[in-house]
């Protein structure tokens, strides 16, 4: 199975270890992974702020860059949802482009959506082991992809993980891209609520699957003096399979 990695701009710069983990896990599962170097950003920040024309040009670039890929996998629910929910609509006046965009939609998967629906992985049979108390942050954009408890199912396949559900898991962490900067007080109140919920779980690690949420929540944990480790789902899986050095928690 040939898989092209769409690493996303935030993961590339802020969470490179997540990108590395995705590559290692996919290769361990027998996928041939490539990384089209021309990729940049899916255009979500522009689109969400109403800059439709600018977003369309970035979407066009994405469609072209991944045109020859068999599968496109990304460790970000929100970037994946951007492609799925809005790419075809961006080209509604250009049927040929819209069709190419639809092809990209069909082959683009969020990382663990890919693990569960395409590779149909069972981490137990691979001997996944990781020791510690873990909670999971559900990113809002997974809603758009129709995903609910997939990540939790994967985490629970790892031997040694003590999983604690996060209270109010479905309530947004308050990131929302530029929302966090334009409406700091609202966003800050939301993220402090999230930190309080994380504190209540007494978990040593938070598994999250969106770079934006992780920047927001980890930054607030630090400000509120709550020491906890943040891992992406790809990282904890890579560590549990011995593909990366295990994080001490």
């Amino acid at each position, binding site marked *: 199975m040939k898989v092209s990695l769409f690493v996303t701009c935030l993961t590339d710069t802020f969470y*490179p270890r997540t*990108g590395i983990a995705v590559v290692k896990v996919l290769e361990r599962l027998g996928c041939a992974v490539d990384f089209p170097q021309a990729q940049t950003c899916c255009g979500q920040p522009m689109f969400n*702020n*109403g800059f439709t024309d600018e977003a369309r040009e970035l979407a066009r670039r994405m469609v072209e860059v991944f045109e020859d890929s068999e599968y496109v996998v990304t460790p970000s629910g929100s970037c994946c949802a951007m492609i799925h929910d809005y790419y075809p609509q961006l080209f509604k006046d250009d049927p040929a482009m819209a069709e190419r965009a639809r092809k990209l939609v069909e082959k683009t998967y969020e990382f663990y959506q890919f693990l569960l629906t395409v590779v149909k992985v069972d981490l137990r049979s691979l001997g996944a082991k990781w020791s510690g108390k873990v909670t999971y942050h559900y990113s809002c954009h997974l809603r758009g992809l129709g995903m609910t408890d997939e990540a939790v199912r994967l985490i629970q396949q790892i031997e040694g993980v003590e999983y604690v559900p996060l209270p109010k898991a479905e309530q947004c962490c308050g990131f929302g*891209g530029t929302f*966090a900067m334009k409406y700091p007080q*609202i966003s800050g109140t*939301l993220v402090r609520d999230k930190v309080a919920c994380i504190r209540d779980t007494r978990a040593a690690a938070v598994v999250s699957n969106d770079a934006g949420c992780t920047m927001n929540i980890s*930054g607030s944990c630090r*400000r509120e003096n709550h020491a906890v480790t943040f891992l992406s789902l790809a990282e904890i899986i890579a560590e549990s399979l011995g593909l990366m050095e295990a994080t001490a928690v």
Partner: protein
Amino acid sequence: MSSTPSESTTSGHDTGKPVGLSVNGHDLLFPPLPYDIHARADKATADKQLLDFVHVATYRKDVTRRQVTSAAFGEKHGDFRELGAAIKQHTLDHLDHYIEKFVDNATAAGVRVHFAQDAAQANAICLDIARRAGAKLCVKSKSMVTEETQLLPQLEAIGVETVETDLGEFILQLDHDAPSHIVTPMIHKNRQSVARAFERELGAPYTEDPQELTQIARAHLREKYRKADLGISGGNFLVAETGSVVICTNEGNGRFCTSAPRVHVAFVGIEKLVPTFEHLGVMLKLLARTSTGQPLTVYTHVMTGPRRAHEHGGPDEMHVILLDNGRTEILKPETREMLRCIRCGACLNACPVYRKVGGHSYGAVYSGPIGALITPMFRGLANYPDLPNASSLCGACYEACPVKINIPKYLIQLRAEMVSKRITKWSDRLVYRMWARSLGRSWTYRLGGWAQKLFFRWQARVAGTLELGDPYRSRGWLNDLPGPAGGWTSQRDMPTPPAKSFRQWWDEQNRP
């Protein structure tokens, strides 16, 4: 006691204050425009008590909604929402046809149907009816549309004492407050403030016991129903095939208001139509479960015409005022979906932002996610530039909506309209366009990422927070960034990128 509603009749004119205790026209819902959300939102988020009420109440309602809908509809919940959406969408797609049918059938049943293009017309029609009826006392059940038209002060100005009979609205009226939630108008208030208002305005002994408080209100209101000569209601649905008005309440006050007084006037938005009773059944099942988590509201009142000759109860005259007030503007295909709304309030309960800022922060009659869409549509995008933007686009509203209004999609659509109409600040337009350009080529993208990393890491080094270790993981932290990023660091720390990017790792692996 001079300010009790029962004594505040026309003599109130002398003091220069509006007669009665109307809250309509309150600046909470009609603030000076353009409206900036920050002041009220910041105040609300700092108000621990408000947060406790609103957050806890909405969160519980949201949990109940999910439990009740999944218990009732199970796997079919999605199909049911699809059906609700289709019924409303179909009706809106053929609204002219169904309005005509409704008018014909309602008229045949003896209803006087009036059309009002805007709030002023709707109020004028109602005042005319009140004058002709010689009305002195009006009992009113809950209606968002009359909040929208600011009816109460106008009725009171012509000497019609008007009493809100929905318990929540009644308390708000006594307390000179305004509703902050479509379904639960006094969600922002606690029992103590109710007790104080009853003591002050009704002369009742101070009590915080909910049962006793309800009894006080009941005793006061029963007297009003008996004396009232005008009853005003809203309408949850209009059924085209029979010309019926349907109201859903839990306190039974709606029945009193619409059957005890001699004249009944219903204020209803034109989007409330459904074709037949079969369709109504679907909508009622959805409305009760998503708004209050009940299988059905306690009272579902269907009114088809005034009292008939052989009937004992009911009004002699029944009027329906069909209100446009900006709705036909939303009816254009690009925004029509917004009109499917059945005002169940589920999106407010599910919304993380509403939970933290409360309804009054929206500065409008309709708050929460649906308010963030229809308020700018009704009252001008340039007047409410924050409403489409003060959202993290988390999508909880869309998931909660019983008629599947894709609220996040339309919030983005309004943002795009702000950009194209240049309501968005020029500096923002410049920043986003330059940002998009830098993302448009791989070398400028890399350069941008590199510069950002260098700047952040240099700042962290100066601040002494830079961790050393794994080049793909160890980072620094910033707590005081300049410019727009200051909004970030005013609330939480900003992580810096690690020393190396994913691309550097890929290149170092000598991969193709």
